[in-house]
């Protein structure tokens, strides 16, 4: 095929559940390509010699390489190429902000002057992983001979899953400690089923067990056992801390402690992890919000507002103080949220939450904003318009303005260096912390980031752990 012919192929749209139907069920919104569609989409790749797309992928997947195999219909080879650098393609294919990463640099998108018309790299990646998982044809992974070394992995999010898998493959004895009763971190408690089916996360966790990883749930390191005791008393030779950024930020506005105000973490945890949406079956109660305001503009805010619709809200407002341009959420989620009926209130911000005398939310006072000069981040900063206050009639407010790092481990681990924001400081090459033998990665190091970055960190830390354990041995 000539480049011209490739460029003539229409971008393959993702089959989706109808917006009106899906807004009331928990099933996955994006249904996935068929093999034919995946092949066609992959054939759009121009095989650019300079591989610009690769520089956008945080783990530098050989994108033209896997797309070439997929275009031939050889999805097994495609997956093998992806797996060389990414452990979680079924997840990343779904949740990576592709329009800011791989697809942003894609020549096809540049030529067609629309990033949405770039090669749908993530969707093909997802197809390859789904196909192998669903047909049970994933290649078995083999582990190196046992080294006799013990590694403790704390947390079970993408950083930890990756680090555990790589350490197990290297022949170490790995135990994963998770505070919750289920593994997966944000992938199970935060990102909803309709965006990332939990069966996929479960499959990845089962994969760890097959590699011989021991999993201890309901184990809070720092409380059940301190990091130092894992080393001193339990004989672990290295520890990886992947505890994420699970500390919800609030806005510090009046009325935030009223009933009906939730952090997105609480709102989503009740719904996802605790299955509160299965009313009558699940014991954890959920909040029957009819008019819901979600504050924020990231993926978390999109997830919370779309969840609110699915939990029966009649009206969902998304309040964001900048404009659509600056919104950090994945473009596809913004698009989906709009289609499902979330009412976007841009250039507005919450000023005060109003409540009745019993302490329940009954309104939200907002302020209108305009965009001023660019700030330090290069984005135009929002400036409030004096006297522009107005009130929205709501009974629920979900605060989704970000997460800070969970301080539990730093607070209980002597000598562990953290920066001003509470993130653990690591050596950028090895991910080792200020304590020899203790490594860290993912959101606890980066601040709230992305799945693929967390995965990359877990992988780098595992390499650091290997080098540390093997050097130690000789």
């Amino acid at each position, binding site marked *: 095929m000539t480049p011209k012919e490739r460029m003539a192929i229409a971008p393959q749209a993702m089959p989706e559940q109808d917006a009106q139907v899906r807004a009331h069920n928990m099933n996955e919104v994006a249904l996935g390509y068929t093999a034919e569609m995946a092949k066609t989409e992959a054939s759009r790749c121009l095989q650019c010699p300079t591989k610009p797309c690769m520089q956008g992928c945080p783990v530098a997947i050989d994108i033209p390489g896997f797309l070439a195999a997929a275009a031939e219909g050889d999805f097994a080879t495609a997956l093998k190429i992806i797996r060389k650098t990414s452990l979680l393609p079924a997840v990343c294919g779904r949740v990576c902000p592709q329009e800011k990463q791989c697809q942003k640099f894609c020549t096809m998108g540049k030529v067609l002057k629309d990033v949405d018309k770039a090669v749908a790299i993530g969707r093909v990646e997802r197809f390859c992983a789904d196909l192998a998982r669903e047909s049970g044809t994933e290649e078995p992974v083999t582990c190196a001979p046992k080294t006799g070394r013990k590694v403790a992995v704390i947390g079970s999010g993408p950083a930890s899953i990756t680090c555990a898998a790589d350490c197990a493959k290297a022949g170490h004895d790995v135990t994963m400690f998770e505070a919750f009763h289920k593994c997966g971190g944000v992938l199970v408690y935060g990102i909803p089923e309709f965006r990332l089916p939990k069966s996929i996360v479960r499959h990845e966790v089962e994969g760890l067990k097959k590699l011989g990883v021991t999993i201890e749930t309901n184990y809070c390191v720092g409380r059940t056992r301190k990091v130092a005791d894992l080393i001193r008393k339990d004989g672990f030779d290295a520890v990886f801390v992947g505890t994420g950024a*699970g500390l919800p930020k609030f806005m510090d506005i009046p009325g935030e402690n009223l009933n009906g105000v939730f952090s997105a973490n609480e709102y989503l*945890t009740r719904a996802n992890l*605790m299955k509160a949406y299965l009313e009558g079956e699940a014991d954890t109660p959920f*909040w029957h919000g009819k008019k819901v305001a979600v504050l924020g503009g990231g993926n978390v805010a999109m997830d919370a507002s779309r969840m609110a619709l699915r939990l029966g809200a009649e009206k969902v407002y998304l309040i964001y103080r900048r404009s659509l341009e600056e919104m950090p959420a994945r473009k596809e989620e913004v698009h989906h949220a709009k289609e499902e009926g979330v009412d976007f209130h841009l250039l507005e911000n919450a000023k005060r939450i109003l409540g009745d005398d019993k302490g329940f939310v009954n309104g939200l006072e907002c302020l209108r904003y305009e965009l001023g000069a660019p700030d330090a981040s290069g984005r135009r900063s929002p400036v409030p318009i004096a006297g522009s206050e107005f009130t929205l009639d709501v009974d629920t407010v979900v605060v989704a303005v970000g997460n800070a790092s969970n301080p*539990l481990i730093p607070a209980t681990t002597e000598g562990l260096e953290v920066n001003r924001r509470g993130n653990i400081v690591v050596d950028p090459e090895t991910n080792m912390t200020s304590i020899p033998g203790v490594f860290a990665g993912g959101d606890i190091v980066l601040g709230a980031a992305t799945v693929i970055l967390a995965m990359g960190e877990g992988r780098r830390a595992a390499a650091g752990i290997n080098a540390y354990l093997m050097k130690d041995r000789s």
Partner: protein
Amino acid sequence: MNKIVSKKQLSDNVFQMEVEAALIANERKAGQFIILMIDEALGERIPLTIADADPARGTITLIFQTVGATTLKLSKLNVGDALAAVLGPLGRPTSIRGANGEPAGHVVCVGGGIGVAPMHPIAQALKAAGNKVTIIMGARNKSLFVMEDEMRAIAGDDLILITDDGSSGRKGLVTEPLKELCEAGAVDEVIAIGPPIMMKFVALTTKPYGVKTVASLNTIMIDGTGMCGGCRVSVGGATKFVCVDGPEFDAHQVDWDQMLKRMGAFRPQEAAAKDHVCNLYKGI
């Protein structure tokens, strides 16, 4: 899985269970709690204080009152059954006077209803640190008292029983003997555990005397690790998470009215769930 190794009914609706949890038994200190689940698929996570622990046997003791769906289900489990999950020990340990830099002195422990159970390890530790310990135990009526013998073993003659209806000890409210003690001027610290409304009035009682008063808060929780913010309360105007910053706070700084309101956030749903479980057990 955490096996139940003993079970005792202490009163109409109060139960004591000893549960296998070796690591927690080793690590726990007075004032800490656990979060348990009966069923991991659809169950709820509820916090309960560690009333006692036996590191040698690897068990912890829980004392709970059946107030809603989950505590009711828990009360139906028997020796040999297992809990699906027990996470802990959570929260900061109690800062024990005499062992925390402050000189030992006279500490008054005020336990209301089931709050006496979580008070037990604290009173023990206070005694061990050389304090004079007075314990005020309050309940609606005699049948609701728990751990009277254990508390007497710690406080001896300084155990004051008080009931709403006078069926045991003095008739009245826990704040009455507390006020008398403060009036007498020999109180260095007060620790209160019980229904929030009781803790609020304990705080109001001691405030005029400037007596340091600590309360152990029992807000609604989910994770217990600082991740959700569901347990938040205002203390001295700042928002605090009870599960990681507490559960104990300066009672004079807590915004009790707000906390009382927050505890009712899910009341209609909880009532429905309880009815549902009650009917299940009635076989309806």
